[in-house]
């Protein structure tokens, strides 16, 4: 037993040391127990994979070798292989592999082409193997999706998935590609869906090297947003670049700078919206709303059962509606209980080039609404077209304070207690646009008030009026210039 563990440890070390690279051949296995991906090894002109690694996530497995013989036990099923031979014995029955079994440093390797016949004998159930794409489905685990083009203006492609998905997204002008590594995604029948629309013309499914991808083609820069707990992806043309803010930053060069990127140490955001290059159209006034926290990150526990993330989402949804009622375009960074890192929020916001960014928080302490602008940290230098990630907000701080004053004014008109100050709160300092944070507390000591529709609506209405006032001021300044 001890040397079985040692063998497994060796295998794990080998797996860890073999970090995947773009060119590395891989196989993905999807099952109800786990979805995982393993590297392939090329031997004798064919692709091989470790049988122990394939079976390990699916059940109890152990292996031992005795000279050239390698025995593996999966749950109660025994298999025996011989190094350099194609003959194998599983459940006491002999059969042949399509190529020789290999034994390397105690690790049993089987040809990838044998998996569709080999695995059902161990697992006792059917497997579906897309051999050319190296995607193996154990049982009925497929995630299906449907895609429907909503003929709104601009059109939106709404993709509904039967399970939550979290693809890596890459964009280039006129194309958005979603790569699904962990999801057992299958096409909805046809590989290509045509929508007879110029803005979003088609969506094509493909699978290769253990991954599935969907490429959406259109004539504009496209961006994706997630909702419904990751079961819905909406693809729409990226918002156009807004008009400059009311209180412009001191340097025009800094204002027109490309959005700063997060430091390389952070993980790649799941959605990378493209910087919008098209500045010829009349730009809509875009507000990016960030319902703070979400998913695993609950925020403050306002009561035993009430999490900050739920209150922020509820108020943000109301604020979105109020803004849209005033003719303001809105992008919500999350419209579901999804986890987004602070860097992801900042990157998404900056790539959208908003007229203003508003992040919402909730608190059980104090009363009314506290409004914050960024407390800029020490260090960081913005040079010409390059903005420092940690202090990207510096140049926009006067505009942020201007926006804060307008929103505070509207809240006071509604008899809501307002306090204004700065706060060391990310992602405010990473935003290359005017940026505010709201922390909503109950107007009296009753926490339940945070959930009252009337209270939420009053605050959302006042904040929306403040933002609309900022938009009007911006437009006025634009015409006078």
């Amino acid at each position, binding site marked *: 037993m001890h040397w079985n563990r040692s063998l497994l440890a060796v295998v794990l070390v080998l797996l860890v040391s073999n970090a995947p690279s773009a060119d590395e051949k891989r196989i993905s296995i999807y099952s109800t127990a786990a979805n995982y991906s393993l590297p392939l090894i090329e031997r004798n002109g064919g692709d091989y994979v470790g049988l122990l690694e394939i079976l390990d996530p699916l059940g109890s497995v152990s292996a031992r070798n005795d000279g050239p013989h390698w025995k593996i036990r999966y749950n109660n099923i025994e298999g025996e292989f011989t190094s350099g031979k194609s003959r194998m014995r599983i459940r006491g029955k002999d059969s042949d592999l399509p190529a020789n079994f290999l034994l390397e440093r105690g690790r049993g390797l089987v040809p990838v082409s044998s998996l569709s016949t080999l695995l059902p004998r161990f697992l006792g159930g059917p497997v579906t193997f897309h051999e050319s794409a190296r995607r193996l489905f154990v049982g009925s685990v497929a995630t299906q999706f449907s895609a429907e083009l909503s003929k709104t203006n601009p059109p939106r492609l709404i993709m509904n998935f039967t399970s939550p998905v979290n693809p890596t997204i890459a964009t280039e002008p006129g194309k958005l590609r979603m790569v699904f590594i962990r999801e057992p995604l299958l096409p909805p029948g046809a590989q290509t869906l045509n929508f007879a629309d110029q803005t979003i013309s088609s969506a094509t499914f493909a699978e290769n090297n253990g991954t599935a991808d969907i490429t959406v083609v259109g004539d504009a820069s496209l961006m994706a947003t997630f909702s419904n707990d990751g079961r819905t992806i909406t693809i729409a043309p990226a918002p156009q670049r807004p008009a400059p803010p009311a209180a412009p930053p001191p340097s025009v060069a800094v204002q027109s700078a490309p959005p700063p990127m997060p430091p390389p140490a952070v993980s790649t955001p799941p959605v990378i919206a493209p910087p919008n290059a098209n500045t010829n159209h009349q730009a809509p006034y875009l507000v990016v709303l960030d319902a703070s926290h979400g998913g695993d990150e609950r925020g403050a526990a306002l009561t035993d059962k009430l999490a900050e993330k739920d209150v922020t989402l509820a108020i943000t949804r109301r604020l979105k509606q109020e803004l849209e009622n005033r003719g303001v375009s809105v992008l919500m960074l999350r419209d579901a209980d999804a986890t987004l890192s*602070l860097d992801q929020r900042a990157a998404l916001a900056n790539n959208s080039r908003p007229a203003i960014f508003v992040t919402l*928080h909730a*608190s059980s*302490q104090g009363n009314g609404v506290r409004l914050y602008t960024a407390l800029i940290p020490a*260090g960081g230098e913005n040079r010409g077209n390059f903005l420092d990630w940690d202090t990207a907000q510096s140049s926009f701080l006067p505009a942020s304070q201007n926006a804060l004053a307008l929103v505070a004014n509207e809240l006071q008109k509604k008899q809501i207690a307002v306090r*204004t*100050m700065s706060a*060391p709160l990310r992602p405010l300092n990473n935003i290359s646009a005017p940026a505010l944070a709201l922390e909503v507390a109950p107007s009296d000591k009753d926490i339940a008030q945070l959930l009252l529709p009337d209270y939420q609506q009053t605050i959302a209405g006042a904040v929306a009026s403040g933002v609309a006032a900022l938009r009007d001021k911006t437009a006025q300044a634009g015409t006078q210039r």
Partner: protein
Amino acid sequence: MISPSMIPRHLVIAIGAMVLVVLFMGIYGWHMRGRASELPPALADTRPVAAPVAGPTEQVTLYVAYDNPGILRPQSARIPLPSGRQQRAEELLRALVNVYLDNSSPHPLPRGAEVRNVYLVPPDLAVVDTDSAFADGHRSGILEEELTVASLVETLAANTSGITRVKILVDGKERDTLAGHADLTTFYDVDAVKKLIEQMQSGQR
């Protein structure tokens, strides 16, 4: 050779009774042991026993946070301070944290919260290393967290000359936020924190 019939009857009864008592005590002891293992362990006071500080007492100014109305108030205190600059900074912040650990604190910090070390890095940086209880048990909220941060930074800067930047660590490591809000990834600018405190005191409402 002693036959059983030679043992007096009262001795047999006494030995029998003692065997019964031993058995009963054994069973009772086993039962109590089982119950003890089911009980939750008593909450241990993880606060360290502070080492005695050598040196004369000195008057310092602590910037103490008040949740209500959400401001910092300067508060004079006499505390014993060692001669080393770094040790002085540590004792200063420990005195501040002790204020917050008091039951009647205007800005309570969790039990076990501690400033482990303060490192003064020339020319102008102070690194404050707190323990995990400090951050893990801290109340979550923008104002609650920024009051703590501002209190640490301002108390340190006001009593230790030459500090313009402060970095806060938790258990010797960088952490994203104190308790979900206040950013701990960057360096705090002492002047910016002073302005923040002025904003707080002005109490704009």
